């Protein structure tokens, strides 16, 4: 078992309802428990409609459970499936030491499409995220997922990037059996997506 850089290690997985962040947190949570960690995964989701902001708070410890919600300003790692969601989470949970890994493809809220709200310019947005992060990794996950044939792979690509970042006490080997169990029929495709994520962060 690798030791934690900090106890608890606080990870937030954010995104837009329907992007698969709850599944991603479930898989990572299970992988961590199998490595012997005490894990808490608090999902913030309400109605099952798509399109809302969703986030999972993951607390990792080698000896105890922490609250299901991370206190403000206490995220160590933020993984976001959508860039504006990364900024939103940083606004409440960021701190000078936080590492952010974000997908760069926006999902526009209908209020933005209809002109009632504004979506920030993508370059400005990434600049703000970078300013609030000790380290920023950007991943073009949705476009890569579409290249693999389906945007549904976005979350597994992001998971590959997270594992590739080396920030969690997990490696590809610890995730493989979990992916196999969760996606018994489409394991191969998901492994390709996972490897793509590792590759995109430079650990392929």
């Amino acid at each position: 078992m690798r030791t934690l850089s900090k106890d608890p290690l606080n990870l937030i997985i954010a995104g837009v309802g329907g992007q698969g962040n709850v599944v991603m947190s479930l898989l990572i949570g299970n992988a961590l428990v199998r490595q012997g960690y005490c894990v808490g995964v608090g999902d913030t989701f309400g109605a099952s409609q798509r399109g809302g902001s969703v986030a999972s708070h993951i607390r990792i410890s080698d000896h105890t459970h922490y609250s299901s919600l991370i206190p403000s300003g206490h995220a160590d790692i933020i993984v976001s499936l959508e860039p504006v969601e990364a900024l939103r989470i940083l606004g409440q949970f960021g701190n000078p030491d936080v590492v952010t890994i974000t997908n760069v493809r926006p999902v526009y809220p209908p209020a933005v499409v209809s002109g009632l709200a504004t979506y920030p310019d993508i370059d400005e947005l990434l600049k703000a995220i970078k300013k609030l992060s000790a380290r920023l990794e950007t991943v073009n996950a949705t476009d890569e997922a579409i290249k693999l044939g389906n945007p549904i792979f976005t979350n597994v690509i992001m998971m590959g990037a997270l594992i590739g970042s080396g920030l969690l006490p997990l490696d590809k080997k610890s995730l493989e059996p979990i992916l196999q169990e969760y996606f018994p029929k489409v394991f191969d495709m998901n492994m390709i997506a996972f490897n793509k994520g590792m590759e995109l962060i430079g650990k392929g």
Partner: protein
Amino acid sequence: MPRIDIDAPGTSVLLLGNEAIARGALEAGVAFASSYPGNPSSEILETIVTVATERNIHAEWSVNEKVALEAAAGASFAGIRAMASMKQNGLNVASDFVSNLVMTGVGKGLVLVVCDDPGSLSSSSELDTRNLCKWMDIPLLEPSNSQEAKDMTKWAFDLSEELGTICMVHSVSRISHTRTNVKLGELPKTENKAYFTDIYDINKPGRGKFTTIAGPAELHNQLHQKLARALDKFESSPFNQYTGPDKAELLVITSGACVAYSAEAIAELKLENKVGVLKLGTTWPLPEKFVEKQLARSQKVLFVEEVDPFIERSVMELAANLPADSPHLTFYGKRSGHIRQYADLNPDLAANAIANIMGITYCPRDVHYDEEATELAKASPLRSLELCPGCPHRGTFWAIKEALRLDGRDGFAIGDVGCYSLGGFRSGYYQCRISNVMGSGAGISNGMGNLRQFGFDQPVIAVCGDSTFYHASVPALISAVYNKANFILMILDNSATAMTGFQPHPGTGKNAMGEITNIVDMETLCRSLGAHVDVCDSFDIKNTIATLLRLMAEGDGSKVVVMRHECELLRARREKKRPYQVHVDPDKCIGEACGCDRLCTREFGCPGLIWDKEAGKSKIDESVCSGCGLCVDVCPQGAIIKEAV
């Protein structure tokens, strides 16, 4: 992920609070489980279902929560351990039955699991159902994590059986929907045999499962004796624990999800040597002797609990009866304004309250960073709840909007509880102007539909979902036909209880186990009641508008329109591909010049349609579009093209 019935005592697995409740019931040998879906409780029955066949358990989605609890009680009376689970609103539906059930008592262990939703993350109301336990004399257990959710549920069966009364396990969203490690216990190998033996004897109240006039007062007295026996057990329960210094400057009394919030707040503030935490797991009846001992630790007491001051009031009542020479206690909590009396709590709110009482400031992060982060994050546009791309309700609400506009008498819709509650928001074109509890759309329309003598002639359309129709709209429709109320009831039949996770219902032909079963046909049912019934496809906007206009023009009567189209998420799950490839022809799209000022992106508002600022044209977002093709019929220019995949 491992099956919920893995026979591996001592193994640590990651379980959702609701899965842990299911596992606890399995470890207690539950053989009958019933429920009606509702966030945050749905996963309890769904988890039991995954192993019901192998473990010979009857698992069902009942038509509503009252029937779920009645069914579970029936099993308990006949000697079978049973559990009914529901969300807080559901308990209201079931509570009439609870009030008599506590009088008759139970047979084998009967556990009621209620999951509250502080903060109304997925609810139309906010309630603290712990109050029902005080009102109806029910022993109450409040787990603070998945491990306790499992252990308490298991114990609740023993307790119920021993006391002869129903016990409540009370969870909240943050317990039900949080995964933590659970050390598994043993699964029993029991053979269940059901047989009912009780005989009512007027001379021995408490025999038989019968309540009638005259008897209940004595049964109420007996119930209080049961509660006194529960109290005895609670006084020494390991679920109540103090952590902290022997003598503390502040004692925090807490339960449920707030236990971890309080502990974390104290650690954040580095006050472990000054502030203690009394965690209560058995909160009604309050273990007064145990709590009295803990009160001697500090003269300052803070209550950290969600929604109502439930423990706070019980402890204050206890404090009022302490010996006259007891030290003076100062209480902080909801009454003092340190803890809010609504919505969910979190570690920050607990830390702020504790810091305030201890005369220090809580600063969760670097002040300069805080200012910058707060400022920069303001650029994040909010995401409102929207109907999914491809949702059939979008077609229905578009048709309602158009029909009511064409009718011109300021008609309106009354909503109900389900995905289509969004009919009151942008996604449903603000068509629903009233929405209350399940079934009340049709109920309220009974009143609106009988106001002719007061000059009321606005058309009234009540919308309800398919599952909601069976749950609570049927009595309202019967009353409407009987009392000649004038309105149109639109049943939005998307073939599932969609909002809570696509559970089947009496109209789907499948039961909780996924087995083929009888269909309670909604058209036949409505026609048998004497209502006129039309059936439309939610994606056939033209026909729906024509039908509604005809019904509104025809005048009086209680009319039903079944809007039928399968939930897009179900279709996508099954077919795994889009029905159409949709794109916008930029030569035909006239952008801002469109008759209704960008009708598709500004009015119609499907999340799959986006606006290409540079080109000044609408565009399909292929990562979001479901390929339903509904927008093709809405575009007045014929600029949106669908091609079969």
